């Protein structure tokens, strides 16, 4: 198991120590530190228990691809490749097949019915499901639900996880993992966009900003 010590949001955002945005992030030092601790708790736990690292990384690869965040997909892809190389191509193929656009979904609240929208509701096909195994197939189905249409979540979705062998503690950890990634990727993406849009003369880090700008326009 590798334990990255770098700040993962900075890494995904392309922020280097000394950049103007690094100083801005330091104004919310507790948030920065605990975003990192969330990463450690959910993706690099000291005791993964019955929710193994390979499954955690597989969810992260899947979420990153669905978000269209190339740097995150590469980062989590490396972690998955190191932990469970045989699983990586299966998860990557599934994440490509599962492309959709959100948030969408049917509202349960009667006065919001006019706002209900439709979209792609994905679950693995039989071949992919067999390759993933029952536990991970159920986890990725749940991940797709939470990423794109969380307002359609119901107790039945949790029951499907239970039926696939997930216990209550691990369902909470899986839910936190998907939800945390939805946060982490957005903070990193937002910072990346902000850095690229910064006036180089004002930021005092012209070359770094130009590099990030180039990375954004080419990479994502």
């Amino acid at each position: 198991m590798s334990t990255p010590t770098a700040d993962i949001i900075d890494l995904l955002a392309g922020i280097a120590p000394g950049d103007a945005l690094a100083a801005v992030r330091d104004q919310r030092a507790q948030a920065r530190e605990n975003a990192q601790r969330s990463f450690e708790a959910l993706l690099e736990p000291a005791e993964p228990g019955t929710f193994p690292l390979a499954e955690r990384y597989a969810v992260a690869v899947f979420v990153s691809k669905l978000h269209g965040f190339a740097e995150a997909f590469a980062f989590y892809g490396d972690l998955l490749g190191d932990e469970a190389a045989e699983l990586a191509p299966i998860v990557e193929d599934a994440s490509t097949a599962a492309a959709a656009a959100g948030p969408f979904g049917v509202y349960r609240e009667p006065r919001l019915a006019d706002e209900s929208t439709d979209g792609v509701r994905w679950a693995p096909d039989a071949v992919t499901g067999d390759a993933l195994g029952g536990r991970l197939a159920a986890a990725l189905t749940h991940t797709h639900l939470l990423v794109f249409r969380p307002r359609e979540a119901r107790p039945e979705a949790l029951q499907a996880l239970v039926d696939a062998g997930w216990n209550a503690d691990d369902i909470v950890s899986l839910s936190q993992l998907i939800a945390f990634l939805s946060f982490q990727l957005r903070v990193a993406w937002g910072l990346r966009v902000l850095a690229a849009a910064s006036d180089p003369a004002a930021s005092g880090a012209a070359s770094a900003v130009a590099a990030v700008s180039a990375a954004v326009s080419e990479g994502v």
Partner: protein
Amino acid sequence: MTEIVTDYPELARPEAFTQEGLGWVPWLLPVAEDELTDAQRDALIEPARAKMPYFRLLARDPEALRARTLTDLDIFYNVSGGIGRAERELAAAATSRHNGCVFCASVHAAAATRESGREADVQRLLDEGVEADLGDETWNAVVAASVALADTPLDFGPDDIVRLRGAGLDDAEIVDVIGGAAFFNWANRLMLSLGEPEVPARRASVR
């Protein structure tokens, strides 16, 4: 459904977005209050949260709960520099409105009203949706940026930064908007997928 998953066929459910207080019932079995371990109690950060099923459910992964809570508190309540409390709550409410989290929207719309005194503007966000004109460009830009950041695949872009800057926000303020909006993509998904909102019995009975 089973001993750990519960549904509520007869629940008094909200009918639309509201600023009025809502309850929240868990679908997955929380840790019983008298069975919380020291590590789980510690992860709650605020002892009163031991009464709330949402936090006792998240206590099943105490390290994740602790880090989530400390992230939340700093993004929303650290007022040294950055944007005002009202605009952070607005970002939370707009994100929740767009993702469809009626519970989260109720809490943070009410907080935005409390912090700003602009109850009618906040109510317009809930009633008309995220395209509503909230009366000034700062609020409209914060809502638009929050909505853009909630979309998947990620679509928040340079135009959103230009609009926030045009409304007078500096980088520290923009980082707070990104942090508040991004955090509610975390919170909404937990609140929407582990349980659901309930109209408190006192109000439900008079409907």
